């Protein structure tokens, strides 16, 4: 059967057909859809875990208990999960464990760019790199077999372009599940990594790598595709597809398993061509490892070391290196002067009011008309985090000073305070991110006598990645009801005395509670609560501007609400965007009461 599947859907289907009984993940673009695809099946346990480390541990536990398991995450998720990942490499498994990491070359939706192929070498585990959806599907069966045969977790590395592209998949398999009963066979030398036992495991890892290297020689997706002998190209992943298009007649060594490398196959390929280059995205992982074999290859001398590749970028690099003739027509260039359209906080976003409050309290936002984009000395320092609310850094709000990684803002805020800055420091974190990795920061702040204010923005969903549930929502990945973790009880339990819950759409309450918290010398927590507009019910009425009352002071524009627009000098509210009933921030702001409700039926 032929199906059009995204890389993520194909990875999920491949794992399902390979008989997994458990899948765990934390949402993160571009990996989210893997677990979402699996959550629809009744015969596996699919869960959103609180973070990637826990997800890895849950999957590892299942693999210890004899059930095939998968854990999937975006590239930075593997940083969070690296501790149990290294441990899994040391202990090995009892049933197949596959770790899917989706890298984000070009930083489409991440805080940094990293090449997670290095994790395979670091952890001494095998690495598979599919180049399209078909391989994403096909590789999964191999990954589980490799994991069990060599007693190791297997790293499958995708990228944004593979995960978010759809291509045709011939679905050949069907789900086959081992009939083995779940069973954990106690074995202290394998599963209890006291130093004495960990030392026993250590040589086994080296033996395993040697065996995997032999296996790589026979792995069917490590293929020589013969072409003209003048140029041989070693490549992997989606880069193969690009390179194949730029050099349709060259010889290719297309690697599906890129760690450990099939050294004999590489030597055979090199011997059969006049010149060898490596074309790979991000790091020089293949190139360095092939050079370490004593083979002279080039690649990163003319292929960019960062950013996403494309056929055009490869062609440019190879032209500069003299590997390609000049193109008959110069490549078309984008129009540079067009206004950008970055992502925004949505109309009706429960975070806008808080950012507006901080922005104006800290004298951070300049008057819109002045066209001044930044103010020199903000009174507040706002440490931020990862989520929709990071968009609060954009104009006209300018209400975020840092964004490093999940949960970092709270620790950063404490560090700034302890460093002795004279400004008040506020840490902002979303509900899902707080549960992911903010809790320990609060514990640390209480323990170390912090005086910071922590604002938890609670929109009751993991919004940025597409509205996944989390432990605070009371709903599981499969849509079933469960116990909801209550944020206010959680922070009180940690020992925070000053905890307030504020309506996200009440500007006055926001201002009062932020002032009170800043004045309190103790560590304080404000939970700003309001539903994400994408999840809100129907909109019975929306707001309109009574133009006869409007004096065009344009203060409403300072919210940065995408529904408030200008036509020929007059602000108006775009009815299809305004969420009306739930959000009335602009109405509270208007000094002339020119913003009023209009029910949609009367328009």
């Amino acid at each position: 059967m032929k199906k059009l599947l995204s890389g993520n859907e194909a990875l999920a289907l491949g794992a399902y057909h390979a008989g997994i009984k458990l899948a765990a993940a934390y949402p993160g673009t571009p990996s989210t859809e893997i677990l979402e695809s699996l959550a629809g099946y009744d015969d596996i346990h699919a869960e959103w875990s609180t973070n990637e480390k826990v997800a890895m541990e849950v999957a590892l536990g299942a693999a210890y208990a004899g059930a095939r398991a998968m854990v999937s995450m975006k590239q930075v998720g593997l940083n969070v999960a690296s501790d149990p990942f290294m441990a899994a490499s040391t202990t090995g498994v009892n049933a197949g464990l596959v770790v899917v990491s989706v890298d984000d070359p070009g930083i489409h939706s991440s805080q940094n760019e990293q090449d997670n192929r290095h994790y395979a070498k670091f952890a001494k585990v095998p690495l598979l790199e599919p180049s399209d959806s078909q391989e994403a599907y096909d590789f999964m069966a191999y990954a589980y077999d490799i994991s069990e045969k060599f007693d190791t977790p297997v790293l499958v590395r995708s990228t944004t372009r593979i995960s978010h592209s759809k291509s045709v998949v011939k679905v050949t398999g069907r789900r086959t599940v081992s009939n083995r009963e779940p069973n954990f066979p106690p074995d202290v030398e394998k599963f209890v990594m006291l130093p004495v036992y960990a030392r026993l495991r250590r040589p086994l890892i080296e033996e395993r790598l040697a065996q995997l290297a032999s296996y790589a020689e026979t792995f069917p997706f490590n293929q020589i595709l013969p072409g003209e002998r003048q140029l041989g190209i070693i490549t992997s992943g989606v880069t193969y597809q690009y390179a194949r298009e730029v050099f349709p007649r060259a010889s290719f060594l297309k690697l599906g398993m890129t760690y450990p490398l099939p050294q004999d196959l590489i030597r055979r390929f090199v011997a059969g061509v006049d010149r060898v280059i490596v074309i790979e995205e991000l790091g020089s992982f293949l190139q360095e490892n092939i050079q370490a074999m004593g083979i002279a290859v080039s690649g990163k001398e003319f292929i960019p070391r960062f950013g996403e590749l494309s056929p055009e970028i490869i062609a440019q690099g190879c032209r500069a290196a003299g590997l390609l003739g000049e193109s008959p027509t110069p490549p078309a260039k984008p129009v540079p002067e067009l206004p950008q359209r970055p992502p925004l906080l949505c109309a009706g976003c429960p975070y806008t009011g808080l950012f507006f409050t901080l922005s104006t309290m800290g004298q951070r936002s300049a008057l819109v008309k002045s066209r001044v984009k930044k103010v020199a000395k903000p009174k507040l320092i706002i440490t931020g985090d990862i989520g929709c609310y990071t968009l609060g850094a954009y104009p006209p709000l300018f209400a975020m000073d840092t964004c490093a990684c999940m949960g970092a803002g709270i620790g950063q805020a404490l560090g700034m305070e302890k460093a002795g800055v004279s400004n008040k420091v506020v840490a902002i974190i979303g509900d899902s991110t707080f549960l992911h990795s903010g809790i320990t920061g609060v514990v640390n702040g209480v323990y170390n006598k912090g005086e910071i204010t922590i604002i938890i923005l609670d929109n009751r969903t993991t919004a940025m990645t597409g509205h996944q549930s989390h432990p605070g929502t009371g709903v599981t990945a499969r849509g079933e009801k469960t116990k909801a973790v209550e944020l206010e009880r959680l922070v009180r339990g940690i020992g925070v005395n000053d905890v307030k819950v504020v309506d996200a759409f009440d500007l006055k309450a926001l201002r009062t509670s932020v002032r009170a918290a800043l004045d309190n010398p103790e560590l304080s927590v404000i939970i700003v609560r309001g539903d994400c507009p994408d999840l809100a019910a129907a909109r019975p009425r929306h707001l309109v501007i009574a133009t006869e009352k409007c004096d065009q002071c344009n203060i409403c524009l300072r919210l940065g609400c995408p529904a408030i627009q200008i036509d020929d000098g007059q602000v108006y509210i775009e009815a299809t965007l305004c969420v009306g009933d739930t959000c009335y921030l602009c109405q509270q702001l208007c000094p002339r009461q020119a913003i009023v409700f209009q029910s949609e039926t009367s328009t």
Partner: protein
Amino acid sequence: MKKLDLLIAGMGGQGIILASDIIAEVALASGYDVKKTDTRGMAQRGGSVVSQVRIAEQVFSPLIRPGEADMLLALEKLEAARWAHYLGGGGTVIANNLALPPLTVTLGYETYPGDEEITRLVKRPKNNFYLVNGTERVKELGNIRTLNIFMLGCASLRLPFSIDIWEKVIARRLPAKIRQINLNAFTQGRKEMPGIHLKEG
């Protein structure tokens, strides 16, 4: 047909990804190899979105090279201008006559290009440029959210796939509640395309 490379551009919330999914499935059902890819960044939030669909006997790269696309379907005018450099000679641009200024324009930091400027950017020698009043038409039909399917109707006149396959795929991809209105939007797009184009070169 040797190959067909299409871009569908617009902004988050306009249904770009669904529209490109439908084209890809129509191509697959018509017996071609196809790859499609979306560039959407943090796309829940109304930023620029572009989908690329590549159709041929065998497709390797999911990414189109600038200057080689055969068709650009844009659901908003600024987005048409943004991606026009992907179009090759003899290609077709079908743009919805709708201007949605980004926030930076509303705030006065940047200026939205005028119609003449957009035409200058989009119109290249030997290209066909159609400006269609899609938003207006789907408002008349009663559901503004059918704009993406209306635009597919316009595009379908210039694509070598049978109407049966289009309608079958659209019906399959849309939930029962909004199926018929979308099929109507598709038909409307097909009907109005020759009549309402303003510029052709």
